């Protein structure tokens, strides 16, 4: 009687027709598409196929100079002269235009970055629009955010964003900067510049005064030119801790304000009384969301010994159901690794994990021939001192450790230079809040993981960064008093 035929999903690719992508993109400076001074361009490729999508201007000092000058002029001549409410209305427009073109943004985000369309469609793009919508409303209400203090903008903000959430990070940076009255020069990551450039189209469509937002594409040198430009007042950086530290050092002698959103190696803690099935879901969301290219990924899993077997059995089964492949397919759970370099780095960590004697599990799945792919991976029997339990891998590789008592797990969880985020799964509220209040982490998810919202401040303790983005507390980074 049992039907021997397995029932599997047919391919369900999102049509890429809606996405209008030019063959070449210039910088967006002073409201105009501006060719790079050096006439140099680089390719941005689709990480799931290795094919070129478009070529993008490579920014140099000259381009940065131009952009900063435009931002300064706009800051002094227009943006600070405008009523705060009008400023807010411009930002609202941006939010609305993103919503209107949401599908196009989702497709391009997926093409350029490799993340599953389900995520770009349901998470990245709506959250980006929401972020603009949220901060737009703050523009004329800043007096209420800082009791007994008068807040004024800083000036020109230089912003550098990573490749893991290209549009969303652009929104995280631009929206609060504009709402607080600053102007912006943004440098997107070199592997994922397209959605920021599409955002430039929207900014132009919204009628934002020229120079208020400028976007200069390029790699590390372009970023360094921006950070070190003498006429910016603020640097906001999201990326690796190593680069963050370099930025902090290079700005030491200046009065530029800095916020850093850096790496993490978050503990995700499962207690024996937790709702195990939902915890397993949280482990998967915490680790394999966006191929693990997430600074707050729950990459160190701590499972109480008494439920270790059950958790691992369920986790492995759940991993078996993950669909890895074409990011444009609506059923894909895990997409392509963002770049060849990143894939190599992840693979070297996996090798290190195997060499350390940890036990590896990877579900059986067929990977496409072309492109950058990594099977979701979990290591058990991992030592606390092992490299895979210590360093940020930024890929779909989970390191599992066990613990026996609450004090032990708090100590282990905090035993890292990072302090961005953490998860705790526990059915007993009193215990959950004991643990959450003892974790050195800027964001703690209790009985959930990897939730984001514009109203919720995000940012790290210790070496995971300085300052907060999102919410009321994200305003301070762009204001002086």
């Amino acid at each position, binding site marked *: 009687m049992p039907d021997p035929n397995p029932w599997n999903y047919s391919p369900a690719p999102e049509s890429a027709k809606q996405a209008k992508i030019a063959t070449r993109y210039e910088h967006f400076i002073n409201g105009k598409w501006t060719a790079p001074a050096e006439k140099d361009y680089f390719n941005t490729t689709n990480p799931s196929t290795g094919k070129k999508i478009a070529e993008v201007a490579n920014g140099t000092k000259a381009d940065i100079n131009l952009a900063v000058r435009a931002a300064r002029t706009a800051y002094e001549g227009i943006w600070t002269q405008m009523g705060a409410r009008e400023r807010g209305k411009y930002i609202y427009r941006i939010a609305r235009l993103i919503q209107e073109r949401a599908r196009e943004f989702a497709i391009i985000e997926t093409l350029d970055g490799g993340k599953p369309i389900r995520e770009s469609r349901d998470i990245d793009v709506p959250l980006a629009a929401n972020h603009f919508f949220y901060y737009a409303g703050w523009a004329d209400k800043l007096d209420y955010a800082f009791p007994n203090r008068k807040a004024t903008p800083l000036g020109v903000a230089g912003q550098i964003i990573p490749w893991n959430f290209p549009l969303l990070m652009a929104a995280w940076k631009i929206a609060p900067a504009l709402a607080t009255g600053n102007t912006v020069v943004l440098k997107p990551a070199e592997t994922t510049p397209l959605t920021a450039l599409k955002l430039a189209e929207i900014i132009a469509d919204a009628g934002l005064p020229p120079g208020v937002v400028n976007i200069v594409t390029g790699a590390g040198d372009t970023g360094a030119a921006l950070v070190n430009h003498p006429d910016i007042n603020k640097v906001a950086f999201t990326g690796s801790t190593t680069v963050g530290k370099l930025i902090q050092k290079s700005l030491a002698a200046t009065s530029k304000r800095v916020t850093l959103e850096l790496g993490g190696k978050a503990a995700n803690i499962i207690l024996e009384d937790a709702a195990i099935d939902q915890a397993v879901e949280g482990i998967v969301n915490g680790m394999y969301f966006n191929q693990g290219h997430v600074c707050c990924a729950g990459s160190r899993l701590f499972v109480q010994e008494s439920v270790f077997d059950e958790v691992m059995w369920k986790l492995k089964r759940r991993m078996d159901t993950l669909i890895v492949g074409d990011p444009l397919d609506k059923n894909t759970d895990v997409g392509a690794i963002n770049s060849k370099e990143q894939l190599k780095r992840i693979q070297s960590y996996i090798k290190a994990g195997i060499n350390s004697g940890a036990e590896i599990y990877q579900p059986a799945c067929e990977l496409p021939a072309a492109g950058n792919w990594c099977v979701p991976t979990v290591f058990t029997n991992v030592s606390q001192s092992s490299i895979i339990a210590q360093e940020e891998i930024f890929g779909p590789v989970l390191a599992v450790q066990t613990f026996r008592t609450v004090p032990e797990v708090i100590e282990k969880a905090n035993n890292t230079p990072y302090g961005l985020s953490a998860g705790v799964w526990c059915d007993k509220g009193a215990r959950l809040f004991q643990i959450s209040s003892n974790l050195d982490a800027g964001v703690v*998810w*209790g009985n959930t993981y990897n939730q984001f919202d514009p*109203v919720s*401040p995000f940012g790290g303790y*210790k070496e995971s960064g300085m300052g907060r983005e999102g919410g009321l507390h994200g305003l301070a980074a762009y204001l002086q008093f």
Partner: protein
Amino acid sequence: MERIEVLKTYKLYIGGQFPRTESGRYYIPPGPDGKMLGNICQSSRKDFRNAVVAARGGLSNWAKRPAYNRSQILYRIGEMLEGRKAQFIDELVLQGSSTADAKTEVEAAVDRCIYYAGWCDKFQAVFSSVNPVSSSHFNFTVYEPVGMVAAIAPEDKALLGALGTILPIIAGGNSCVLLASQSKPLCAITLGEVLATSDLPGGVVNLLTGFRDELLPFMVSHKDVNAFVASDLSKTDLTKAREESIHNLKRIIHHQEDMATAESPYLILATQEIKTTWHPIESSISGGSKY
């Protein structure tokens, strides 16, 4: 026969104890009239290291105290200070203040204690937030002490500057190691005696005397120090502090305000981290019965 006065030996205040410097070194800062102020400990980097250990030890106890309790202890510091007003005035005068200025400074110092005592259990309510996320979660943001703070007291206003630096740090639940004014160290040491008798647990505040130039590099580079606070660094020192902070991404807080006069809850926030917590909110599943 005239009574021979008993002179005071000035010591450090580390972990609730009053040791002399492990280095055996001393310096003799001159008073305004050229009279020597005393043999003041010239703390070494090892003294600083020991003070950091003490401060780290004092931290968890202090951070976990109920805010009300911290509030009472800060108030107690004010009470004890009030009781020793005369001694502080004498020391300030020795260090060059007029009697009237000294009196004003000591009284302001007492009042500063009371001011921050009041904030201990209030700033959280003013600056925390409950954030209305779109999903079915309770989301709230609170302040937590950044941890172990190294601080340098302003060179002027030996008492008020030191207290103005320490109080916002400890009001928020941090522990600290404070380097006293180099030229006017007397009150800082006597302040240790006040703190030691104020129910403040040992290790929460640690006081060093010595040379700023010598100790600054260790204060900003020590990897177990979470934040560094000062208000009158030279540009060179501030640059140095920022450069060295990257070893553990120490928070470098250089107050623009004059710490002798400034009082604000925002000074408490300067040594706070911000933690946001999420938790699901369930909703009822049933529609009820029809029969």
